[in-house]
């Protein structure tokens, strides 16, 4: 379950970046298909890691990037959640490529107006 160590690293990172005094509502990450991250395991890990911390109750949003497939026979390119797929033309070995990015993209916070004005 590498999702758990990723959730731990992410929580520390969010606490470093979140504006002081704000309540974190949502955290968005972008994940390349190569990472093979399980969305359910990732969300469970996030809830477990943030439980009883200032991040408790925040929602983790995953932007899972798909595989790109290129058909060597007809040249068609398309995206898919899985790396091995048969092309419409019957070719059984389209070439799969994907990224391994794992990036924090944004943090959404609630701030009290008065607090925000002071800042």
């Amino acid at each position, binding site marked *: 379950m590498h999702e758990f160590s990723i959730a731990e690293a992410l929580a520390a990172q969010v606490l470093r970046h979140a504006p002081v005094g704000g309540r974190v509502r949502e955290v968005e990450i972008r994940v390349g298909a190569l990472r093979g991250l399980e969305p359910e395991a990732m969300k469970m890990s996030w809830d477990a890691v943030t439980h009883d911390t200032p991040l408790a109750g925040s929602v983790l949003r995953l932007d899972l990037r798909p595989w790109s497939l290129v058909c060597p026979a007809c040249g068609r390119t398309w995206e898919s959640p899985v*790396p091995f797929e048969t092309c419409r033309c019957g070719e059984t070995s389209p070439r799969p490529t994907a990224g*391994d990015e794992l990036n924090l993209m944004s943090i959404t916070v609630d701030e009290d107006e008065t607090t925000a004005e002071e800042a």
Partner: protein
Amino acid sequence: MSESVRTTRVPVVERVLEVNDQLAATTRADLERRGILAVDIIGAPGSGKTALLEATLRALKGRRHPAVLVGDLATRRDGDRLARWCDQVVQISTGQGCHLDAGQIRDALMQVDLSEVDLLLIENVGNLICPVGFDLGQAAKVGVFAVTDGDDKAAKHPYLVQAADVLLLNKIDLLPYVSFDGPLFQADVRLLNPTVPILEVSSTTGAGLDAWLDWLDRKSADGGASTPIA
């Protein structure tokens, strides 16, 4: 009067494993400066990582100066097996952790006298998925598959196949006893990684090990040009 709440989306674009990656980069620079080739050996539980290291250490005796770091969830057994062949072996107990990380490698390296070492062999925790995404500061990643685990394992673990600098297909002495479609395995690997060398070996009989030892020598001669995952 702070009744009203303002919701703001703060854009941040940063790698989630930034802290790990920075530690790994420091290790990579330290090892390169010392001329030490570091390889991260990744494979399923029981695929033969320790057996491969035993055979490798035996063959390199008197020729190279290796040190070994070995990750395991709970026991010291792999470390004890390897200590028979190498006097610098550090066992890293990961507890629940299904992979090694860059911090554990730095801690373990504190226990090694690096002055004589020219090769650092790292046996990762038995797992085909989790270790791949954690940079340790290695110069090369080695993926180990075993014929006894089935010919579909490359297709099911694309990240390792794509990230590996060399793949070993181990336990070929058992090919007569298992159904393993070699051409299918090779074709799956080639779709995911057109250039990675695939070396067929038996860690117990020693078949094919020369090609692996040659690969290590050539990689060392290259100065272990680093391939951080990116």
